[in-house]
């Protein structure tokens, strides 16, 4: 018995070593950095410990801007993309002809490179000397005045950002939901039909509860994904997100580490821990809400 106790740990050792070096140690290190004031990579020294880093980050207008942007992005894109994906998958599962074609078309954005998609959005939205972009052409066609979506007012940039994010996360959600819908047994629908159930009641009382685990999964991963948004912003607005006013929390952390104004690991660590706290809180709330509404 005694021998087998150590044996077990021996078998676990490779995994523990690996996870310890590459996951646990960095995590602890980030926490340590975030409390060390003015830590310097080169000299490996700091001016002392305390909450100064947190105070600085929370007072930094760029951080506050990034926080706001991230929250707007999360609150708008997660419900919109999930709802839209549900609508599209319902439509997809109810059509017979050309279903495969539609499924492929809807899945294309998923396999397209982020930066390539960014370029397409530039064509749609960016104002240049030669053109105002396709969307502006449309707006003007209907009698509106053109808006600079890329370098113009903040709301316009946010709008483009949201459309972009929804568009890029949609395929995965559609994929998940169409397979979830397909996994609901036909017999449930037949039973409901024989009982004379209206389509709306079938949807709310049967379809929705049956696919609720998948919807919940999409919402959780959607929240986390939206909080971690960064590359999409770069694709649209370039690397200098702070001056464009479109920075996100991950963007802020990156800038603090490596950006033009970089070299502040302490501030970056503090911001990272704030982001972690936010995501953790939201996920906990999600889990609590789901307990009563998700049927496994």
């Amino acid at each position, binding site marked *: 018995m005694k021998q087998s106790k150590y044996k077990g740990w021996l078998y676990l050792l490779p995994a523990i070593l690996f996870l310890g070096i590459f996951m646990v140690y960095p995590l602890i290190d980030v926490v340590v950095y975030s409390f060390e004031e003015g830590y310097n990579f080169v000299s490996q020294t700091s001016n002392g410990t305390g909450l100064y880093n947190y105070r600085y980050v929370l007072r930094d207008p760029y951080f506050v801007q990034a926080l706001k942007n991230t929250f707007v992005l999360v609150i708008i894109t997660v419900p919109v993309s999930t709802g839209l994906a549900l609508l599209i998958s319902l439509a997809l599962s109810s059509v017979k002809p050309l279903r495969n074609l539609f499924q492929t078309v809807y899945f294309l954005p998923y396999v397209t490179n982020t930066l390539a998609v960014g370029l397409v959005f530039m064509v749609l939205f960016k104002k240049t000397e030669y053109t105002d972009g396709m969307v502006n052409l449309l707006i003007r066609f209907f009698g509106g005045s053109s808006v600079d979506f890329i370098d113009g007012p903040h709301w316009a940039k946010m709008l483009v950002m949201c459309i972009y994010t929804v568009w890029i996360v949609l395929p995965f959600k559609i994929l998940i939901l169409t397979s979830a819908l397909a996994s609901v047994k036909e017999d*449930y629908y037949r*039973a409901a*039909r*024989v009982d004379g159930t209206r389509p709306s*009641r079938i949807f709310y009382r049967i379809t929705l*509860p049956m696919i609720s685990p998948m919807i919940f999964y999409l919402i959780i991963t959607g929240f986390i994904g939206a909080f971690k948004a960064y590359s999409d912003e770069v694709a649209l607005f370039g690397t200098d997100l702070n001056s464009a006013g479109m920075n996100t929390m991950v963007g802020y952390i990156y800038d603090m580490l490596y950006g033009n104004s970089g070299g502040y690991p302490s501030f970056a660590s503090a911001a990272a821990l704030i982001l972690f706290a936010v995501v953790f809180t939201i996920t906990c709330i999600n889990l609590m809400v789901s307990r009563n509404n998700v049927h496994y």
Partner: protein
Amino acid sequence: MKITLDHVTKRFPNRNKKIHEDVIAVNDFTFEIPDGKLIGLLGPSGCGKSTTLNLISGLEMPSAGRIFFGDTDVTNLPAENRGVGLVFQNYALYPHLTVMDNITFPLGNLRGAEKLTKEQMRAKATEVAKLVQISELMERRPSELSGGQQQRVAIARALVKMPSVLLLDEPLSNLDARLRLQTREELARIQRETGITTIFVTHDQEEAMSISDLIVVMKDGVIHQIGKPQEVYDSPCNLFVAKFLGTPPINVFEGCVRDGQVFIGEEAVLDVKLTGDAGAADSGDGSLPVWVGIRPEGFVPANDGRLTCALSKIEVMGRDTSVVSTHPSFVGTTIRSIIPSEDVTGIGGEIVRFRLKPSKVCLFDKTTEKTIGFEAR
């Protein structure tokens, strides 16, 4: 409610796209189901039983023919307006709802003047639950129920809206043997108590025979025989029906009828007078080739018996004994006869001789496989 199927046919396009010919699942069905009876649709798998049920429920529309409930033509009525209760083979209980919610679900669909309050729904559900004896399970989820309990819930859900017709698709196939026996009695009881015309589909002839008022034997989308279970068992209309009903199955021999005697091999085993068309044909001097079907209980061991078989073994099963033997003219491998245990004494050695009970013998035309009527002499 009386149900009438009038020349109903259902065709499906062939899945194999290279074959343009449609698959005919149900071929020109015409029969009438009397009000308030328990009817068993019986046949081997793939014979169109479930399709017939779906046609009656309205989940499938017939390619031709008409369906009547009472005197109303419901052929073009969709399933939701027919008011039938349907119990699925896998029960199709909504897994996220409690038993109570499952049973009240159909009631929640009622609109307008028929709309019920929550209390009324619960009262109705409780009433039906009592009928199928699941009153103490109302707050459970389907996953917390045994197979038999789930089946009762499914029946309760189908019954709660007081359908004019109750349809059951293989209702007992998901239950274990003991539960199956118990549940089929239960089914018959529920049907008697409610008086709802009930049609159930099964491939198990024992199940159909034991509880149905009427059985419909089908094969390849064609009705072979309709009748009371005992009638169909005693006088099957053809070889298929005779083989399909009864366990152990009927023993079929190759034989012929000559000079008013049934011959199996060289032995004249029964003196008969053929009736009907075959009787007229027999008047000549030729011999008529036939299949001779003998039910297992039609063999009586006797020293002066006219059928001689080679004895293989004797299997004692308590109440009965089954004598396994062989005969060169037998179709298949072994003849199985069931004999009351007290009559077994004296059987042994190499051969066994049987006298045949004429009422347990059927003759079938060798080519058409249709029954040939005869009287024992």
